[in-house]
């Protein structure tokens, strides 16, 4: 996500960092890079202009030039301003209606139908009873698409074919929900251009008939400068309550996210991050800003780690580490913990600075995944005693382990050698830690 923007800013600041002291000209040079990066990230050029102006005022002021760590200060400023630009705090859905009516609108191909289904799934996991309403009577098979997705989620889809005007479908859908006890109604509308007056009149009519609590604009993360016009005109016509940013699992830098909030005031509430129906996440402006700056999405990672890592296991491993009795069994446990967090390439993307590395080696994540599976197989083919005392493993045992794990003796050798290296490295580290009287925190988790 937002890959190249963070790369650009990192480059700029690295150049500054190497000099140590800032002059006004240095700040200007950095700001020029920030401007270019933002423009290339599809942030609207007027938003960029304003952003840079504000940044310059703060950067050239006392704050930065007289700071002891000026570059850190600039990074902090850019981060603060970016966060603010994207709306500061995360904003949740308002589920206050009885039923709550949510209207999804947007251009053709933005991902409304998929977003509607994902949102239904999300609500369902949150213990709501959602109803999907198929009000796109124009695009061929749009209703069918929603029905298929609804079936996959076991969420009912209200439809009346394509003979009935969308306004009627929407109102009857809401009535249907009220009668049958659904608490959230998600209305999927046809894609429309914001300059198409007849189609905009139609969606305004839907709005006035169903009185939705939430009107969400669905926007493709790849959208360019046009995002501003689209968002501001949809907002003018419908008074948006929020935005869903889709296809953020691509490599688009997503500058649209920065501009839309700026011009509409409507917060981004969700982001679509994959083709699967559960690939919808709440949008956190501060995390996204951190990510843009190459600080990694550390918060998301920690949150995920906390919900999946077995704290007790982790602590035990940490203690054994400190006692220097780390075994292949512990190694296996650690690896399983990491894998429980999710696909490796996704995890790596969240680690600060890794996007630069991954940019050159996109295959890294997948290879790592394979490697991990192989290592796991090898360790599992060992007896418990072998895992605790790798010294026992002789040539014959190696052949057995290789055959059992579907690998070669060379693979087994490599693993044993690497494990040995890791262990001696840990010995050093824990030795240092002991002298300082503490177990190094960073070693408890393998990232």
């Amino acid at each position: 996500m937002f890959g190249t923007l963070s790369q650009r800013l990192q480059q700029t600041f690295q150049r500054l960092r190497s000099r140590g002291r800032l002059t006004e000209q240095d700040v200007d040079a950095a700001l020029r890079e920030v401007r270019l990066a933002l423009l290339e990230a599809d942030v609207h050029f007027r938003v960029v202009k304003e952003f840079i102006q504000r940044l310059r005022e703060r950067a050239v002021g006392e704050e930065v030039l007289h700071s002891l760590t000026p570059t850190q200060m600039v990074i902090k400023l850019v981060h603060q301003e970016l966060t603010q630009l994207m709306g500061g705090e995360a904003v949740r859905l308002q589920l206050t209606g009885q039923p709550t009516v949510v209207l999804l609108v947007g251009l053709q191909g933005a991902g409304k139908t998929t977003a509607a289904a994902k949102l239904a799934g999300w609500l369902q996991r949150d213990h709501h009873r959602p109803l999907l309403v198929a009000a796109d009577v124009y695009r061929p098979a749009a209703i069918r698409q929603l029905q298929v997705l609804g079936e996959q989620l076991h969420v009912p889809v209200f439809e009346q074919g394509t003979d009935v005007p969308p306004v009627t479908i929407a109102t009857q859908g809401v009535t249907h929900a009220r009668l049958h006890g659904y608490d959230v109604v998600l209305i999927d509308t046809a894609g429309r251009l914001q300059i198409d007056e007849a189609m905009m009149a139609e969606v305004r009519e839907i709005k006035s008939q169903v009185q939705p609590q939430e009107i969400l604009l669905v926007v493709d993360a790849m959208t360019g400068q046009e995002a501003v016009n689209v968002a501001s005109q949809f907002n003018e016509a419908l008074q948006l309550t929020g935005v869903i940013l889709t296809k953020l699992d691509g490599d688009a830098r997503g500058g649209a996210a920065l501009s839309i909030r700026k011009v509409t005031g409507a917060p981004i509430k969700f982001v679509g991050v994959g083709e699967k129906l559960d690939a919808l996440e709440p949008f956190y402006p501060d995390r996204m800003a951190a990510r843009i700056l190459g600080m990694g999405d550390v918060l998301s990672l920690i949150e995920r780690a906390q919900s999946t890592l077995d704290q007790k296991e982790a602590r035990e491993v940490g203690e054994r580490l400190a006692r220097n009795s780390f075994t292949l069994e512990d190694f296996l446990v650690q690896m399983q913990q990491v894998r429980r967090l999710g696909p490796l390439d996704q995890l790596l993307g969240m680690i600060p600075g890794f996007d630069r590395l991954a940019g050159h080696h996109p295959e890294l994540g997948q290879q790592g995944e394979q490697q991990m599976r192989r290592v796991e197989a090898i360790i599992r083919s060992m007896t418990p005693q072998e895992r605790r005392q790798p010294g026992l493993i002789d040539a014959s045992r190696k052949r057995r382990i290789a055959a059992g794990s579907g690998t070669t003796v060379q693979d087994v050798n490599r693993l044993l050698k690497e494990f040995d290296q890791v262990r001696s490295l840990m010995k050093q580290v824990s030795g240092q830690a002991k002298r300082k009287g503490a177990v190094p925190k960073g070693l408890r988790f393998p990232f």
Partner: protein
Amino acid sequence: MRWWGRKVTTELEQPQIPLVKPASPLATPAESAAAGGSAEPPDRPGKSWLARLRAGLNRTRQAIFAPLAELGRHGRIEPEVYDRLEEALLAADVGVTTTAALLGRLRQEVKEQGCTQTEQLLPLLRQAITAELGEVPVGLQTAAQPPTVYLFVGVNGAGKTSTIGKLAAQLRRQGQRVLVGAADTFRAAAIDQLEVWTRRAGVDLIKHQEGADPAAVAYDAVAAGKARGFDYVLIDTAGRLQNKENLMKELSKMRRVIERENQSPPAETLLVVDATTGQNGLQQARLFTEAAGVTGLVLTKLDSSAKGGIVLAIAHELHLPVKLVGVGEGLDDLQPFSPLDFAQALLPDWQVDSGADGPV
């Protein structure tokens, strides 16, 4: 039908119940009747796409090109004139690098020709743009031996399926025998959507089940195209984001399968790009070309207020020509690309939107 015995359905004038029915109160009768499928959105007059672009701008009185309106008031060429032009190009998604290159070229021309007045600038800049895009429109290639195979690729929601539907209808009307391969086996109801389009167009469809191997669909489409003497085989693929390595490999495989079966690569591999796409379009063009050997672009949704300037950046950096533009939802709203019209729409004369307010 084929040696591995997978069930292949071929559709030929099947009197089925349409999945979606016409006669929405909003649809014009003619369009609904012609479509025989789903309802058409309202208000789609047959105008040239340039006219439509302008109409769009005037109707909403929104002017991305307000910077140019100010330009008209200047007489002599001053430094800030270039700033306004830069903004205009950036606002159209042309991108920083290409904009810098175009303006560099403009400055040089101005110097060489000794221009002094701002009104001389726009024609020069338009010339630079058309030079970048290739002065002459590049048509679609056909194969020496029929069938001519076109493979359509692109990210999700770019408009591949609709483009195929429109192209199939136009070729059919020219008396060509057209077969469409439904190789988007991933997205829910993608096959149904293509089915509606092919029925409207009156052309044949090769399809498997949802979730089937798309390369197998492509193989069957090409094999059937050869065996039954079709002139054109158009193959739809699932939308995919270009950073999904496995999905891109799937595309490479489809291309290989087509090449092996047809003894030649697809006559065109067309990357479908949405006109609202920003700078990510460049990355799309790069990676899709790497995986599938893209030969040209289709720029869709140009009836929006977006300018599609990204194709200029793609032409500048990767030399991929634009072959077709989509300007609406009707069957005829797919047209050959004209660099001259495009440059004119990108940089309209300042009278067009003078006095309008900017978008922010």
